[in-house]
């Protein structure tokens, strides 16, 4: 607990970093086409120049801010800024059309804050317990954990399990290029000296996530699919009446808890949580027929749930080094770049970083509340940002970001190549997040496999001797099975 208090002192003394993260997150969340993962990529060059704790709280602020920001465009222009805000459109936009957008934004802000708070408390109390268990892991358990992590890539895939797995294995293949970590021999360099150091994380991240998005947005614009939707400028009264607020807290609390639980489960995320919470709120409502026409509970439930997933998703990330969704996968890459290795050792070796994160995460929720309420009046203006300025700026920021890591034009070129690869991947249903997961987890899996085999003198059975390892293999199979069942259902639905 004293450590946590020190964390709060740190968070308040670095409030400007947290504020930049939250405001940046709200901005990328509001703008359709940008997301929390793109926001982290754009912030990467700056993260490299601040201390790890400050970078971590900035990223967590951005994560939470982007989750909230998605609701603003969902309510005002019926276009969710992030997939997690898709359920918010159902009641948010109808309310905005009635001239009550202000009320919808107020409820979204309060619900998002509450969801974030519940998830922050879960993070603070659950993560240390899980890390304590993870400290007992040996190489065999870690290898099994990595296998489980790699199967998540199948689940985070957008269109098909095959493409998800291919993206992940392609990422692992890229991670193999360079020097073999065990024996130090050169591999897959094809005589190119530059490839001896392998593919740096930064240009790959910038390329597949941010530059590919610039290309996709240009395509949408050119095809006339990015036409501006006339948004509502009429906010109406902002604070709902006492009668309208009645019973809303129950929906918010229940959805926050639901979102937090879903967030902990890898490969789920805000979109699933928000739709589940929306359905539950409708099921328990006394007037379910009003859902879809501008019911405030229909805004509160998805917003509390999707923000609830943020803290939950951070639990496996910082305790096990396993990301649960796309944003935390990018965050994992960013953490490695700034020299922070997530996992149980983070808790024992650098507890101050963990405490700073916990405190920063909680304080970020208050900033969301403050900035959220303040931005209600100006949020329609954010949506007027001209795309002809915004995306060229992002393009330039990406290229300079790739350059800034090693002052190397080679990295800039690499980012452009991966931008084109990321564009093709996204366009044809492959998963950029799976590629990054493969690139990050592949080398760890290889290292732990080598360690396990060295310790057991080459006995492969060592990998299945531990019950914990077997448990992870079962979870991995369940994860793949769940994805297969899901894709089977989707296939039947498409045929119908």
């Amino acid at each position, binding site marked *: 607990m004293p450590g946590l208090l020190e964390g709060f002192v740190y968070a308040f003394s670095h409030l400007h970093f947290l504020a930049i993260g939250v405001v940046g997150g709200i901005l990328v969340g509001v703008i359709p086409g940008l997301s929390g993962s793109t926001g982290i990529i754009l912030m990467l060059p700056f993260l490299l120049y601040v201390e790890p704790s400050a970078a971590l709280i900035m990223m967590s602020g951005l994560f939470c801010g982007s989750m909230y920001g998605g609701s603003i465009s969902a309510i005002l222009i019926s276009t969710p800024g992030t997939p997690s805000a898709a359920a918010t459109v159902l009641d948010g936009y109808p309310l905005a059309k009635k001239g009550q957008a202000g009320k919808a934004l107020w409820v979204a802000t309060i619900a998002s804050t509450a969801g974030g708070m519940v998830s922050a408390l879960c993070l603070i109390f659950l993560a240390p317990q899980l890390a304590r268990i993870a400290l007992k892991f040996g190489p065999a358990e870690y290898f099994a954990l990595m296998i489980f992590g790699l199967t998540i890539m199948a689940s985070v895939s957008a269109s098909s399990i095959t493409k998800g797995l291919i993206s992940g294995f392609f990422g692992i293949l890229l991670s193999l290029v360079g020097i073999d970590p065990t024996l130090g021999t050169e591999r897959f360099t094809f005589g190119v000296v530059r490839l001896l150091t392998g593919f740096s994380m930064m240009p790959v991240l910038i390329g597949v996530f941010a530059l590919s998005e610039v290309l996709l947005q240009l395509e949408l614009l050119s095809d006339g699919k990015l036409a501006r939707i006339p948004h509502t400028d009429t906010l109406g009264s902002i604070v709902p009446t006492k009668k309208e607020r009645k019973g809303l807290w129950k929906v918010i609390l229940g959805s926050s808890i639901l979102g937090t639980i879903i967030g902990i489960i890898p490969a789920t995320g805000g979109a699933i949580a928000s739709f589940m919470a929306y359905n539950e709120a409708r099921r328990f409502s006394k007037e379910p027929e009003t859902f879809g026409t501008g019911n405030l509970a229909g805004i509160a439930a998805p917003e509390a749930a999707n923000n609830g997933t943020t803290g939950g998703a951070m639990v496996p990330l910082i305790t096990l080094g396993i990301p649960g969704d796309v944003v935390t996968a990018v965050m994992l890459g960013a953490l490695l770049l700034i020299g922070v290795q997530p996992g149980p050792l983070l808790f024992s070796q650098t507890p101050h970083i963990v405490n700073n994160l916990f405190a920063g995460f909680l304080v970020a929720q208050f900033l969301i509340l403050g900035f959220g309420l303040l931005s209600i009046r100006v949020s329609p203006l954010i949506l007027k940002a001209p795309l002809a*300025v915004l995306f060229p700026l992002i393009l330039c920021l990406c*290229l300079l970001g790739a350059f800034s890591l090693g002052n190397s034009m080679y990295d800039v070129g690499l980012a452009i190549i991966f931008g084109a690869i990321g564009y093709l991947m996204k366009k044809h249903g492959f998963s950029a997040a799976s590629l990054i997961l493969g690139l990050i987890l592949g080398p760890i899996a290889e290292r732990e496999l080598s360690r396990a085999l060295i310790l057991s003198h080459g006995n492969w059975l060592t990998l299945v001797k531990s019950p914990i390892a077997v448990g992870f293999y079962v979870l991995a199979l369940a994860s793949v099975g769940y994805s297969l069942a899901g894709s089977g259902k989707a296939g039947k639905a498409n045929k119908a």
Partner: protein
Amino acid sequence: MGRIDIVYGFVLGALSLLFFVETLSAPASRGGINPRTFPLIVILSLFGLSVVLGIQGLLRSLRDRNPLPPTLPRGKTAGKLAVLTAAGAGYTLILEPVGYILATPVLIAVAMILFGERRPIRIAILSLTASAALYFLFRGVFRVPLPRSILW
């Protein structure tokens, strides 16, 4: 998307084979550790999945009689994407010899035109202002040594 999946299956399969051949040139087992083991698991898995993707694509293209919409951009859109990618590649090539100050406003201006901006004064002002702001951020705040201009 059936046909494009066949293409991807073929390309990824060929890539796997290329890496497979390269793996065989890695040194054999040393002290109980074989540097080929993990890469082989990955490469064979990728090859197997590529075959599955190709078959799935083939079945889908046989099943879907109606022609699907094109999965790759065409015409004007393809041209714009090619110009933007070429502008990025060109920027990579000229940034060091020409310098940040001259190269960056040109890149931003080209991108602005591609994104639909047509007013020349606005393009000039915004590309110069944005370049200056980014220069201040990277050079002034983060001390990133951006390539200097040939002008000085």
